[in-house]
C-alpha cells in the first residue's frame, strides 16, 4: 500500500520508505500550516512539515566538523554569509553556533574566519567539543 504524504505527521514514518512506497506526484508542502510571511519568521519558529529538508539531516557526510569558540569570535558574520548549507546560527547580529544536522563539513567557515587564532576550526568528527576547545591553538605571531 503506497502511503499518502498528506497523512504523514512524523518524519520517521517516511525515512526508510522506498520511492515506490509513496504515492507519486503528491504535492510537497514546506510547512504544516499556512505561514503568512516566511521572511518574518525565524528558522527555529517555523512549523516545518516532515517533507521539508530542514527536518532531515546530512551531518553523517562529515569526516571533520567545525568547532566554534565564542571567546575569540568578533561576530563579523563572514561564516554566516558564505556557509552553503545555512548551518551557521546567527541571531540579532551575534553568531551562536553551528547546526550540526545540516553541516556537511566543507570547511568554508574556517577558511573565511578572520580572527587570530581562528574562532572556528575543523576537528575530527569524534572529538568532543569541550576537548576541542581545550586544545585550541595560541595566537600566531606575525613574521
Amino acid at each position: 500500500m503506497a502511503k499518502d504524504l498528506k497523512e504523514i505527521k512524523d518524519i520517521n514514518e517516511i525515512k526508510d520508505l522506498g520511492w515506490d512506497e509513496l504515492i507519486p506526484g503528491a504535492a510537497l508542502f514546506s510547512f504544516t500550516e499556512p505561514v503568512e510571511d516566511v521572511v518574518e519568521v525565524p528558522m527555529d519558529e517555523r512549523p516545518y512539515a516532515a517533507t521539508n529538508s530542514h527536518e532531515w539531516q546530512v551531518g553523517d557526510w562529515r569526516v571533520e566538523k567545525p568547532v566554534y569558540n565564542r571567546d575569540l569570535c568578533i561576530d563579523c558574520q563572514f561564516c554566516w554569509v558564505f556557509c552553503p548549507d545555512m548551518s551557521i546560527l546567527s541571531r540579532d547580529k551575534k553568531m551562536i553556533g553551528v547546526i550540526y544536522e545540516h553541516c556537511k563539513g566543507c570547511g568554508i567557515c574556517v577558511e573565511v574566519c578572520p580572527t587570530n587564532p581562528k574562532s572556528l576550526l575543523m576537528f575530527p568528527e569524534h572529538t568532543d567539543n569541550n576537548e576541542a576547545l581545550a586544545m585550541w591553538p595560541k595566537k600566531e605571531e606575525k613574521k
Partner: protein
Amino acid sequence: MVKKIKNLKEFSLSNDRFEGANLMCPGCSHNIIVREVLNATDDPVIVATATGCLEVCTAVYPKTSWDVSWIHIGFENAAVAAATVSAAYEVMKKKGKLPPATQKMVDEGKEPKIVAFAGDGGTYDIGFQSLSGAFERGHNFMYVCLDNEVYANTGGQRSSSTPIGASTTTSPAGSVSYGEKMMKKSMVEIMADHGAPYVAQVSPSKWKDLVKKVQKGFEVYGPVYINAQSACTTEWKHAPEDTIEVSDLGVDSCVWPLYEIINERDEHGIIYSTKLNITYRPKKKIPVEEYLAAQPRFRHLFKPENRHIIDLWQKAVDARWEYLQRREEAGV
C-alpha cells in the same frame, strides 16, 4: 520595497528561505548564490528552476528545500516559466483577481519578485532559445545563471561556457589534447544586446556587490540577467573549503570581471542608450596563472607542451579587461 542592507551584520538578520540538508555537494557555490539572492529582498519570491544540480538536489522526493513558491520546469524553459508567471501575475493584478493573501502583501508594498535559476547548461546552450524569447518580449523577471562552466549534474560534460584548456569528460586532456578548445561565450553582452534594462556579472565571494546588483535588478521593470560565477568543487576539482578563495582569484585576476550594463529601452524594444559600469577593480591585478593553478581541471596546462595555452589565457583576459574599461570610459 528595497531592503536596507548597510553591512554584513545587518544582512545577517535575514531569515533564510532556502533550507539546509539539501543534497548539494559540500562547499557548493550554488547554495551561496541562491541564499544571497533570496536574502536580498524581504518581498515574496517565486522561483522557477531549470533542470540542473540545483533542481535535482533541492527537490529529492519526498523532500523540498524551498520555503518560497517554487516551480520545477524542463532544462530548456526556465525563462519561459518565469515569464509566464510574471505575465499571469500582471493580468490577475490588473483584473483584481489576486488571491487575498497576495493582494494583502501587494497592498503593503511587497510586490512578488519572480526569479529563474538555471545552470550554464540551461542558459548558454539548452535554455537559450526560451531565454532569448522571454527577453525579447520584455517580461518582468530576473534570470540568474549559476555559471560553473560545465554540465556538473550529468558527469562533467563541456558546455559552451567551458573555457579554453579545461579538462572535462567530453574534452579530456591527455597526450593528444590540452582539453577544451574554445573560449567561453560572452553571455552578459549577448543578453545586454537584447535590450534588457539591467544585466550584470557577479561573484558570490563579493556578497555586497552581488546583493546590490540583485536589488537594482528587482527595482527595474523588465527582464534582468545576472551571470553568477559558481565555483564547482566536483568539476573544478578544488577542495571544498577553497570555494571562496577560488572565486576571489577569478575576480582579482579579471577572469571574472564584475560589471553591469544598463540599457534605456522603451516598450517597443528600441534601445536609446547603453552604459557599462565596472563595479569592482582589483587593487592588484594578479596573473591568470594563479587562478588556473588553484583548479586541478587546468593542471595539465602547466606541462611544458601546454604552456602556450596559459599565455593565450592571459592575452584573452587582458584583451577583455581592456575592452570593458574602454567601454566604461566611452559610456557605451
